[in-house]
């Protein structure tokens, strides 16, 4: 048995079997897995781990609330595709992670959360700060572990990373008792390697399915590709593009799919679903073939299932067999990694003339665009759409935009045209307010050379605004756009449309965000008019440190188009021809 002292390799990895404490094993395993940054908050039950941290080449970002840690790990993962890591103590530290874990679960984000746990001797006794966190997170993790022996630590952690990364990615939690952190064991990174990844047994691409799919594509008159988050998860951007170009098929994107297919591509239709443009949703309803790529027919995307794309045959290419026929019954299911399936499918697809269908779709676009708010003369009002449009124009679309949840999220999706993958980071599945600021910190830590913008509403921003201090402590250059409409905007919109304008509990009093930023030592400015907009954005970008812009936008603006819950995809509430706030061209 080799019990040498640490012999780290250049990247700090310990390559020879070494006797270490559980705490050291934790960090050594993380280093071995390629982890360079973690987000966390200390406490009694994880203190041994924190004590050992300084010996390892890992950057620890101290958050202000553990929810921030899980969102940061999530943003880190979304920006890079790597596994994000969050660390918290037992009890309240661990439960504070839960919202971030659930957010990662619903959007299939690879993440490992490490929590401290009370000593194994008192497990189950309601000891101080004891919570059964593996029980609590059971439904919101891909898998979780309770480790109470130092020797089990490396295998559990390595297995956790494997699970987080493999198949359909997701969050994994490893709960480590305090005594396991303190005990010693022989650390052998290689020996702790998990058994080879066992793919889902129901995952197999059938030769027949490929043939059938190719046949359907060849014969389709009005096909549409639906591109989801899976395009990026699988790295299938090239393959989707080849499919679209080879067969001249237009591509509609889900919210999380934005960036998976270049916005400027002539075959890009834009975002589908509840706030998708009318031509996109109409094209889907009129299609005779849908090719769903790495998307799961979420209810925000389909309207009502019984009215969804009734004329279309459906091909579903998806890595998770449990998604097949879950919301929408499909004709051909190709279960497997999207990029691999498309590689197999592409040789069977040859040039196809799609011009007639593309022309039909195009004809329905023009008129709608005219009434777009950004084309209207300056009325003195500042609209969120203006902000999004200018952010896109001025950054050249090259920034990573991290949005919160609400109206601004939809305006961002409509007006910021994402050209590249991983440039839009947003909570799609869970719709977690408070996500943006911490997730942006994660993204910036992961990509220090990229321009990062937070786009948040005045409501959601306040849910996690203490993380402003984290930005300062970590000296991060992050630009923040608060879209301040004085309301919980999206809820106000629902109240306007469906609850008789009963604005119950949605008007929102906020602190002066400029002063709030100032209190943190962050430069800031309020923007009230369209005229000030571009200059302010330039100023924020040019400023060396973090910068907050408080955009005081039109209070009662709504996101159009909108499909009311329970309606079909084509039954949209259109942009109004006449808006009480602004004169618009006649109804189109």
């Amino acid at each position: 048995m080799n019990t040498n002292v640490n012999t780290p390799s250049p990247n700090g990895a310990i390559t020879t079997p070494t006797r270490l404490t559980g705490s050291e094993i934790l960090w050594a395993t993380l280093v071995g897995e390629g982890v360079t940054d973690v987000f966390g908050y200390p406490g009694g039950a994880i203190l041994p781990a924190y004590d050992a941290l300084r010996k390892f080449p890992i950057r620890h970002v101290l958050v202000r609330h553990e929810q921030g840690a899980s969102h940061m790990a999530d943003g880190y993962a979304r920006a890079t595709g790597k596994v994000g890591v969050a660390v918290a103590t037992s009890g309240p530290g661990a439960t504070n992670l839960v919202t971030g874990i659930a957010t990662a679960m619903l959007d299939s984000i690879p993440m490992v959360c490490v929590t401290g746990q009370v000593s194994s001797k008192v497990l189950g006794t309601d000891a101080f700060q004891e919570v059964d966190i593996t029980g609590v997170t059971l439904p919101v993790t891909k898998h979780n572990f309770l480790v109470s022996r130092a020797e089990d630590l490396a295998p559990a952690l390595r297995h956790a990373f494997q699970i987080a990364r493999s198949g359909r990615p997701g969050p994994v939690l490893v709960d480590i008792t305090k005594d396991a952190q303190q005990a010693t064991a022989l650390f052998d990174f290689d020996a702790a390697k998990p058994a080879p990844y066992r793919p889902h047994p129901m995952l197999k691409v059938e030769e027949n399915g490929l043939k059938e799919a190719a046949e359907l594509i060849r014969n389709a008159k009005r096909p549409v590709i639906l591109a989801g988050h899976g395009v990026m998860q699988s790295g299938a951007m090239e393959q989707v593009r080849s499919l679209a170009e080879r067969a001249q098929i237009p591509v509609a994107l889900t919210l999380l799919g934005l960036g998976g297919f270049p916005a400027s591509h002539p075959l890009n239709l834009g975002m589908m679903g509840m706030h998708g443009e009318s031509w996109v949703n109409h094209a889907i309803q009129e299609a005779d073939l849908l090719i769903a790529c790495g998307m799961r027919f979420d209810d925000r995307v389909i309207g009502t299932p019984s009215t969804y794309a009734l004329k279309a045959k459906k091909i579903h290419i998806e890595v998770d067999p449990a998604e097949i026929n879950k919301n929408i019954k499909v004709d051909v299911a190709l279960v497997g990694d999207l990029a691999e399936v498309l590689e197999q499918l592409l040789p069977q697809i040859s040039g196809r003339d799609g011009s007639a269908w593309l022309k039909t779709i195009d004809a329905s676009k023009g008129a709608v665009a005219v009434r777009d708010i950004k084309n209207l003369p300056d009325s003195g009002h500042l609209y969120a759409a203006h902000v999004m449009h200018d952010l896109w124009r001025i950054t050249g679309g090259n920034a990573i935009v991290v949005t919160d949840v609400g109206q601004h999220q939809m305006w961002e999706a409509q007006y910021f045209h994402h050209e590249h993958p991983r440039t839009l980071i947003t909570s799609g599945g869970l719709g977690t307010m408070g996500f943006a600021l911490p997730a942006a910190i994660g993204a910036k830590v992961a990509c220090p050379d990229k321009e990062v913008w937070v786009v948040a509403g005045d409501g959601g921003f306040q849910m996690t605004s203490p993380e402003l201090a984290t930005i300062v402590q970590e000296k991060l250059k992050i630009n923040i756009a608060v879209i301040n409409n004085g309301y919980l905007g999206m809820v106000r919109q629902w109240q306007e449309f469906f609850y008789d304008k009963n604005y119950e509990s949605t008007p929102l009093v906020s602190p002066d965000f400029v002063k709030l930023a100032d209190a943190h030592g962050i430069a800031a400015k309020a923007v009230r008019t369209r005229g000030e907009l571009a200059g302010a954005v330039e100023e924020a970008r040019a400023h060396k440190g973090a910068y907050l812009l408080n955009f005081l936008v039109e209070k009662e603006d709504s996101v159009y188009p909108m499909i009311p819950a329970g309606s079909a995809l084509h039954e949209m509430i259109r942009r109004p021809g006449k808006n009480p706030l602004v004169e618009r061209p006649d109804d189109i």
Partner: protein
Amino acid sequence: MIHTFVSYVDDKPGVLTRVSSLFRRLNINIISLTVGRSERPGLSRMTIVCEASAEAGHRIRASMYKLENVLDVDDIAGAPAVTRELALIKVAATKDTRSPIFELVEVFRARIVDLAPESLMIEMTGVESKIEGLIQVLTEGDNEILEVCRSGKMTMRRGHHTSRVLKALGAGAIEPEDGASQTQQAEEGAVVEPE
């Protein structure tokens, strides 16, 4: 419709919770769930019976496979299989009222496994409907049923079916022998018909 899943899972703490929690999440009621050791050390075998739509079967199976501790899931559906349940039934009976019960027990090929001055206990294995049949005739015969304990269903495919995973795992898996599999499918399930 009724689905019956047979699953091999790791014999580890918390695995039962993971599986049952999955059904709760899918909002599917479990009718019966039996777990016990299997022919493989370290692996438990579960039989899960639930009521769900026909289409749900695929999704339940696919979702179970997503659980890290689940190695194999077989959806028995309409395939030829043997299904059994064990029931212990305690009936009020004195020395003077026992004999009609003894007769019933005989007809149903059940067994008396305990006799007390004021009660007796019947053990019976069989398909669900047969157990229900016995309970029914006991009740109709004006017997007071004091306690019923039923195990839930256990199911095994007929013939040589060996689960794919066990085969893949190598050692311990029983290689099928051709010819040894042609067991006749017995008629089962008549309400009061003895086997």
